[in-house]
């Protein structure tokens, strides 16, 4: 498997227009606002198993325990959401599934950046939900 290590420095020239890049960056900014979680997005083709590649990429994120990686492979039409240890407590698999559903339905309509922004918004909203002290013991 070719690890997508060097990809982080490649400018987003072909995949998204400047307006679409701004849309995604703004969605990340909003999702991270007032929250403890950090969000990262990767859009690109994968050589091997997408889950393994997504986890490998998630491991490279600083402070990955609170990081959420949205990994999109448009070539194989696969979406992976990887959460760190802390992030997984806030964003359980049900929340991730809901966000993934919203994203994939927008993807299949041909709107990649809009789907990513929608998913980040949903994940951010779920991460911001009021903490119930007697239930959520973080």
């Amino acid at each position: 498997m070719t690890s997508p290590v060097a990809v982080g420095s490649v400018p987003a020239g072909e995949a998204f227009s400047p307006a679409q890049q701004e849309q995604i960056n703004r969605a990340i900014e909003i999702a991270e606002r007032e929250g403890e979680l950090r969000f990262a997005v990767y859009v690109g083709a994968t050589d091997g198993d997408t889950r393994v590649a997504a986890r490998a990429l998630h491991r490279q994120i600083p402070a990955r325990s609170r990081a959420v990686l949205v990994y999109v492979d448009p070539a194989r039409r696969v979406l992976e959401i990887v959460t760190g240890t802390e992030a997984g407590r806030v964003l359980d698999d049900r929340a991730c599934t809901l966000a993934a559903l919203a994203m994939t339905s927008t993807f299949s309509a041909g709107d990649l950046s809009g789907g990513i922004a929608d998913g980040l918004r949903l994940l951010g909203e779920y991460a911001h939900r009021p903490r119930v002290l007697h239930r959520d013991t973080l």
Partner: protein
Amino acid sequence: MRSRTAHRALVIAATAGVTLLVTVTPALAREQDAGSDPGESLSPLATLLIFVGIPVGTFLLIVLLVSAGSIARGTRYRPDRVWDATAVEFGMPLQPAPAPELTRPAGADASEPRAAASGGHPEDDQSGGGGISARW
């Protein structure tokens, strides 16, 4: 599928033919009507400009107007097209992947199957870290 295409072609040909026949009838009139003044005949160049140049120009203008939006928006993903764009990353800066031997805690057992398979921290794969996969 083939019969459907053939059907479409037939309908288009029939429509074009019938329209041409109906509209061309006045031109076949042998005698001029009383008081009609046909005027000078068009030169070949003027004929080409009017009957070819203007329709082609209008067609190109409409194509340009329709595609202007998507040209301005840039590359757009389509589910039925091959994706060959360069990979991009948003959000946090990624740091170079540390060697697995160095990052693995001393007590971590390499026999843990999933962690060994993905070559990294057992913490990510086993305890707490989660996530989902989806397709579209």
